[in-house]
C-alpha cells in the first residue's frame, strides 16, 4: 500500500485598501496599470514602507490559526527575474510573522489537526497577459498587493483531507474578515506538494500550480498521487519538479524541474527594519476574533443536536449559522429552520444567483412561519411557497397570509364537500381505485389540494379521503 504525504502552501490576499509597501489602491476590476506608483513600479531610488493595517490583519490570521507570533520578524528579498516582478525581487519574510499553528478538520475518523509550519507576509506580483504568440502585456495593478502565505507541515494524507483543510482555512479567513478568499479572483491560491511512499521514508515530492478551484485541487492531487504510484510501480523514479494542472485535459504537466528552479539568493531586506509586534497589537486583534468554524461546528452539533452535514453547511457561512441561531432564539423549530435554510433559502439564492445579503427574509419571518404551522393555520407546502414569494420583498408573514387568504382549511365539512366533488368528477379513477389500484390515492389527494388552493391541512385531507373511499 502506498501512502501519500501532502503539504499545502496557500497565498491569501489580505484585504486592505492600499498595497503592502506603498499607498496605491487595491482594486480587483480597475483598468490595467491605473493603481500604480513609483514604489510598486520599482523605479530607481524608491523605498518600501509597511502597511500597518496589513500587519494587523496578518496578526489576526496568525492568532486564528493558533500560531505563535514572533515578536520580531524579518523581511527578506527573494531574487528572480520575471517581467511581472518590478524590482527583480519579491519582498517576503525570512523570519516569519508566526509559526507552529494548526487548523482542526473533521475526517471520517473524527477530528484531525493539520499543523501549520509558518505564516508570513509578502507582496504579490503583477499579472501577465499573453495576447497572441508575439505580444505579452503586463498589468501592475496587483504588484505589491499584500499576501499572507500559510504553509502546512506535510501531514495531509489524501485529497479529501486537503479539501477539508482548504475549506476550513478559507472559512477561518472569512470569519475573521481579512480576505474575501475568492479563488476565482485569485485572492486564495493553493499549491499542494505531493509525494508517495510504501514505507516510512518520505518520497520525492512534486508541487502543483495553476489550481483555480477546490475541484481542481482535489482532482490534481488525486491525479498526481496516481501518476506517481504508476511510475513507481513500473520501477521508475519521481523527479522533483513543479507541475501545472491542465484544466482542459485534466492532467498535470511538467512546468520545470528542480535543476531549472532559480537560485533565489535570499537575504535580509535592507530597506525595511525588522517588524516588531507588540502585546498591544496582539491583544487588540484577539478581541476581534469571533467564534471560529470548528468550535461553532461542535457547538451547533451539541446544542441543537443537528447532523454533521447540516452543521457543515451552516458554518460554511457565519451569517448563515448566525441566522439559524437567531431564528431558534425567536422561537422557530430546529428541524423547520434547518430545512428552510439549507434547502429553500439556499435554493432561492442559488437560483437567483444573489448573495445572502440581498435576502429580505429575517429569522423573525422563519419564527412566524413556524408559529402558523404549529397552530395548523398553514401547512409546510404553503410555508415554502411563502418563503419563495417574500424572499426579496420581506413582506411580514402575517400580512402576506392574510392578503393571499392562505389560512389553512381545517373545517372537515368543507373538506368533505370538496372530496365528494372531485370523486364525482373522476368516476373512472374511482372505479380503478376501488378495484385495487391504491396508487390512485395520491392522485385524489392532489386533486383535492389543488381545488383548495393548497390551503387544506394535508393530514385531515388524507384521513377524510380514506374514510370516504372506504365507505364506498
Amino acid at each position: 500500500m502506498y501512502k501519500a504525504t501532502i503539504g499545502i502552501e496557500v497565498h491569501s490576499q489580505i484585504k486592505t485598501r492600499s498595497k503592502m509597501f506603498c499607498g496605491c489602491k487595491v482594486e480587483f476590476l480597475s483598468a490595467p496599470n491605473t493603481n500604480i506608483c513609483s514604489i510598486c513600479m520599482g523605479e530607481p531610488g524608491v523605498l518600501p514602507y509597511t502597511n500597518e493595517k496589513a500587519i494587523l490583519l496578518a496578526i489576526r490570521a496568525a492568532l486564528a490559526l493558533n500560531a505563535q507570533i514572533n515578536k520580531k520578524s524579518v523581511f527578506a528579498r527573494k531574487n528572480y527575474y520575471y517581467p511581472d516582478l518590478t524590482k527583480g525581487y519579491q519582498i517576503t519574510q525570512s523570519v516569519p510573522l508566526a509559526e507552529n499553528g494548526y487548523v482542526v478538520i473533521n475526517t471520517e475518523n473524527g477530528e484531525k489537526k493539520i499543523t501549520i509550519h509558518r505564516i508570513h507576509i509578502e507582496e504579490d506580483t503583477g499579472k501577465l497577459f499573453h495576447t497572441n504568440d508575439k505580444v505579452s502585456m503586463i498589468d501592475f495593478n496587483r504588484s505589491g498587493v499584500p499576501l499572507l502565505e500559510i504553509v502546512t507541515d506535510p501531514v495531509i494524507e489524501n485529497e479529501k483531507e486537503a479539501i477539508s483543510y482548504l475549506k476550513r482555512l478559507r472559512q477561518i479567513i472569512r470569519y475573521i474578515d481579512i480576505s474575501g478568499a475568492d479563488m476565482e479572483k485569485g485572492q486564495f491560491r493553493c499549491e499542494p506538494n505531493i509525494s508517495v511512499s510504501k514505507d516510512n521514508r518520505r518520497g520525492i515530492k512534486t508541487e502543483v500550480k495553476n489550481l483555480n478551484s477546490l475541484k481542481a485541487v482535489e482532482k490534481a492531487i488525486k491525479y498526481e498521487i496516481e501518476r506517481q504510484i504508476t511510475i513507481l510501480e513500473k520501477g521508475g523514479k519521481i523527479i522533483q519538479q513543479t507541475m501545472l494542472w491542465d484544466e482542459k485535459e485534466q492532467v498535470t504537466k511538467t512546468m520545470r524541474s528542480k535543476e531549472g528552479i532559480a537560485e533565489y539568493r535570499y537575504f535580509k531586506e535592507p530597506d525595511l527594519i525588522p517588524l516588531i509586534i507588540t502585546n498591544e497589537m496582539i491583544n487588540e486583534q484577539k478581541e476581534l476574533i469571533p467564534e471560529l468554524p470548528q468550535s461553532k461546528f461542535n457547538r451547533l452539533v451539541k446544542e441543537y443536536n443537528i447532523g454533521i452535514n447540516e452543521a457543515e453547511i451552516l458554518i460554511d457561512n457565519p451569517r448563515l449559522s448566525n441566522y439559524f441561531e437567531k431564528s431558534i432564539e425567536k422561537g422557530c423549530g430546529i428541524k423547520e429552520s434547518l430545512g428552510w435554510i439549507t434547502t429553500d433559502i439556499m435554493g432561492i439564492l442559488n437560483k437567483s444567483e444573489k448573495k445572502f445579503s440581498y435576502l429580505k427574509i429575517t429569522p423573525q419571518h422563519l419564527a412566524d412561519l413556524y408559529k402558523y404551522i404549529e397552530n395548523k393555520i398553514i401547512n409546510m407546502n404553503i410555508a415554502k411557497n411563502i418563503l419563495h414569494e417574500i424572499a426579496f420583498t420581506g413582506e411580514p408573514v402575517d400580512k402576506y397570509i392574510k392578503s393571499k387568504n392562505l389560512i389553512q382549511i381545517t373545517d372537515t365539512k368543507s373538506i368533505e364537500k370538496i372530496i365528494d366533488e372531485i370523486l364525482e368528477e373522476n368516476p373512472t379513477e374511482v372505479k380503478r381505485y376501488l378495484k385495487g389500484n391504491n396508487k390512485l390515492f395520491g392522485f385524489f389527494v392532489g386533486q383535492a389540494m389543488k381545488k383548495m388552493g393548497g390551503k387544506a391541512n394535508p393530514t385531515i385531507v388524507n384521513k377524510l379521503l380514506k374514510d370516504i373511499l372506504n365507505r364506498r
Partner: protein
Amino acid sequence: MNNSELIAKGSIKEIREAVINGKLHTVELVNCFIQRIKNNRINSFISLYEDNALKRAEELDKKLKNRGKPGKLFGIPYAVKDNIAVKGYEVTCASKMLKNYKATYNATVINRLNDEDAIFLGKTNLDEFAMGSSTETSYFGTTLNPWDNSRVPGGSSGGSAAAIASGESVFALGSDTGGSIRQPAAFCGVTGLKATYGCVSRFGLVAFASSLDQVGPIGRSAEDLELIFSIISGFDKKDTTTKRIENYKVSGPTKRKFNIAYTNDIFSEEISPDIKGNILSILNLLKEEGHNISEVAFNFSKHSVPVYQILSCSEASSNLARYDGIRYGYQTKSYKSLLELYNRSRGEGFGEEVKRRILFGTYILMAKNNALYTSSFKVSRLIRENLENIFTEYDVFITPTTFNPPFKIGEIIDDPIRMHHSDAFTSICNLSGNPGISIPLGLTGNNLPIGMQIIAKRFDENNLFQFAKYIQSITDYHKCLPEEVK
C-alpha cells in the same frame, strides 16, 4: 569681503546674509555660478538646469521684495550627484542604462533643501551607479581634479567634490556607500560628511547598497555642512531605516578640551609620507592646545575592504536587478526571447565595473556561499563594537581619509583590487554605521590636497562637528583653493 570673494569663498551664512541684505541679488549670484560651470572644463556636471535655476532665483528675489520669511538656505545654489532624484529631471546615475530616464518624484533631501529656499543648479558626475573611486567609470567621461587636471577627483561623488573645489556651487549633495563622499572630498581639498546610518533619508537616492548608503553634503567648511545636515537629517516615513531622533541643532563654539584617538595605521608603510606628516603635525598642534591625544591600535583597516566588497556587491546585485529593459531605461534594439531581452539590455546598458560587482554579488548571495555573507556581517559587528569601545574613552577617532593623494587618470582603472583598496579607511564608517567627516589638511609637495577623516560615536554628529569646526577655527586648510579659483 567683496562680492566676488564672497561668492568664491564665503560661508553659507555669509552669502545668505548678503542676499537678504540686498548686497547681492539672487539672480546675480546664481548667474555667477552658472558662468563658472559653463566656463570650466573639468566635466563636473552631467546636466545644468540654467533656466530653472534663474527662474527660481527670480522667485526668491520676489519673495524677498514681498517680505516673505527667508529660509535657512535662502538663495544658496547647490548641485546634486546624479543618482539622487529631482522631479522632472534626468537621473542618469552616469549610466547608459538610465541615460534618458527622468525622475517622477523628488528625493526627500531635495524637498528639505528646497523648503529652505536653496536653488538647484544641476546634476554632477559620478562613477556609474556610484561604483568606483575616481569617476572614471562614468558613462559621461571622467571628471578632472581641479587641482591637477591630469588626476582624478576621486569618487564616486567626484563631480560634486570637484564642483565645490572649483567654485561651481556653494555646496553639493553626494552619496557615500564606502567612502564616496569623503574620499573625493579629500582628493579635492573640500569637506565631506557621511552621517550616521539612519540620520538622512535615502528616499530618492538610487540604491547601490541599501544598508550602507547615506546621502550627505560636500562643502566649503564643517560649519556649512553642519547647517545642511541639520536640514536634511531626521525621520522620514518614506524611509523606514531613518531613526526617530530629535531635530539636529547646530552646535555653538566650544572651548572644551577633546579626547582624541588616532589610529596606529598612520605609521603604516602604505600611507604616503605627506599625509602622515600633515596628520602628525595637526595632532601636535592639538596637543599644544591642551587636548588629550592617544594612539589606538585599530586592526580592522585591512579587513574593511573585503567585507565591504562582499556586503555592498551582494546588495547591489539585488538593487540593480530592476534595470531589466522593460519598464524604463535602456532596452536593447532587438531580441528574440525574454532571456535575450534581459541579457542584451543589461549587457549593453551597464559598464564593466557595474557588471563586475553585480556578478560578484550574485555569486556571494548563492546559497552555497552563505558563509561568506554571514561572516562579513560578523566582521561588521566587530568593527562597530571596536569603535564603540574607542568612544567610551574618546570623543573622536582620527584616520587618514586615503592612503595617497589623488592618482593619475588611467593609473589604476584597470586594477580593480587597487582601486577598491582606497576605501579601506572610509568604508569602516559604512560598515559600522558611524558618522565620518573628511576635512582638508593642506597640500603635498606637489600641491595635491590631503584629507583627514574624523569619526565619532553613532548619532553623535554634534561632537563630530564641534571638533571639525574647532580644527577649522585654528587652521586655514579649508580655505585653500586651486590656483584658478583664487
